[in-house]
Structures are given as structure tokens and as C-alpha cells.
């Protein structure tokens, strides 16, 4: 069942916004006027994806730069390598696999974005 997520005017083309619907944390993405709904937690280290960057249909995570296709949720690349002098754990540690994002159908109707969260 489609549920209203937000008004379309809340997200400019190329923008993203996080919403919670039925307890699920979702990021709504505006790609050239078409809206997509993807899981909020990154498929690598669970970072909040709406703080990343949307380049066309490619969503880049703000934490380690893993990339995802917002249309399908497919993981397009894993994290960037650890910086040489980095004090943090290696983001490419094999224990941290990068998996695709869950996606939900989204549609624009009467100036609002509706998402079918099952």
C-alpha cells in the first residue's frame, strides 16, 4: 500500500531526504524529477546515506564512498581504501562486505511522493 512520504517540493532534483514510514528508515531521492526510495543505512557500514552525494542515479556514501544504483539498489563499488596514515580501521576489511540496498516502489501523485512500504 502506497503511503505519503513527503511533498515533492521538499527535494530539489539531485537531492535526497530521509523519512521514516511504518518504522522503516528510507531515503527518498530525486533523480531529474523521478523519485526513488532506498534503504537509509549504507550496505557497507550502515552510514546514513542521505548525507552522501547523488550524481545522476549514483548514490555515494559519505563515510567510505561506496556507491549504489538508486534505481535497483545494486552496489556499484565497495569502499575507498584506507588512507596511508589513517588511524581508523580499514574500510576494505573483508569482514565488512558491501551489499545492495533494499528499494521500494515510489510514485509522484498530486505533488506528493508516495512509497509502497511492504
Amino acid at each position, binding site marked *: 500500500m502506497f503511503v505519503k512520504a513527503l511533498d515533492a517540493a521538499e527535494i530539489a532534483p539531485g537531492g535526497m531526504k530521509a523519512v521514516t514510514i511504518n518504522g522503516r528508515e528510507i531515503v527518498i531521492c530525486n533523480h531529474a524529477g523521478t523519485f526513488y526510495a532506498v534503504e537509509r543505512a549504507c550496505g557497507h557500514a550502515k552510514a546514513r546515506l542521505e548525507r552522501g552525494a547523488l550524481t545522476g542515479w*549514483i548514490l555515494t556514501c559519505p563515510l567510505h564512498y561506496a556507491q549504489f544504483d538508486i534505481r535497483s539498489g545494486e*552496489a*556499484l*563499488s*565497495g569502499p575507498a581504501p584506507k588512507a596511508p596514515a589513517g588511524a581508523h580501521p580499514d574500510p*576494505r576489511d573483508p569482514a565488512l562486505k558491501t551489499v545492495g540496498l533494499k528499494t521500494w516502489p515510489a510514485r509522484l501523485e498530486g505533488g506528493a511522493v508516495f512509497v509502497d512500504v511492504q
Partner: protein
Amino acid sequence: MSVEGRKKALRELFAPTVDRLGYKFTPNDEDADFLLEQLANIEAETGVPYCPCQARSKDRAADMRMVCPCIPFHRKHYDAMRRCWCGLFVHKDVTDPDSLRQIPEGRVK
């Protein structure tokens, strides 16, 4: 993660960048597809899409100068050839990429 998906993503990400630099993807689709596949494989292995046609060293700063698209780091050299070293990108006015040759950097005047 699939190589095919990554190739499409690299095209999407690189096209606007090289456009601003006066370059475009080579019109030789077979070469472009092959080079994008090499980039996707190198990125899957190392985490960075290094140029598939340049040798990496143990000097990180030097290696960063060959991360695709590496045109800004070799502007004079590539402009003289009207293509980048591996040939994935050519000047916007190039229609016959096979006529362009690699010229060692030291021979560029």
C-alpha cells in the same frame, strides 16, 4: 557488485568531468568497453580506478596522478596527443581515434 554495472556507473560519473576538460569518450565503442572493464577490475582489486595502461609504483602521490580520469595531471602531454594515455578519452573534435598515436611524455615539445 557486477563489472557491467560498474562500467555503466563509471561512464555516468566520468562523462561530465571530461566534458568540462574538452574531452569525450573514444567513439571506438569496443575500446571504450574494454578499457572501462579494466578500470572496473582494477577498482574492484585496489579500491581505486587507476589507469590500466600506466604502471603503478609504491609512491602513493605518484599513483594518485594516474587515477582515471587523469587528464588534469597530464594536460600538456595529452593535449599534444589529443587523447589520454590509454585512449579512453579523446579531444571532442576527434572522429577517428585510431589515427592518434601515443607519444612518450619526454618527446612532447
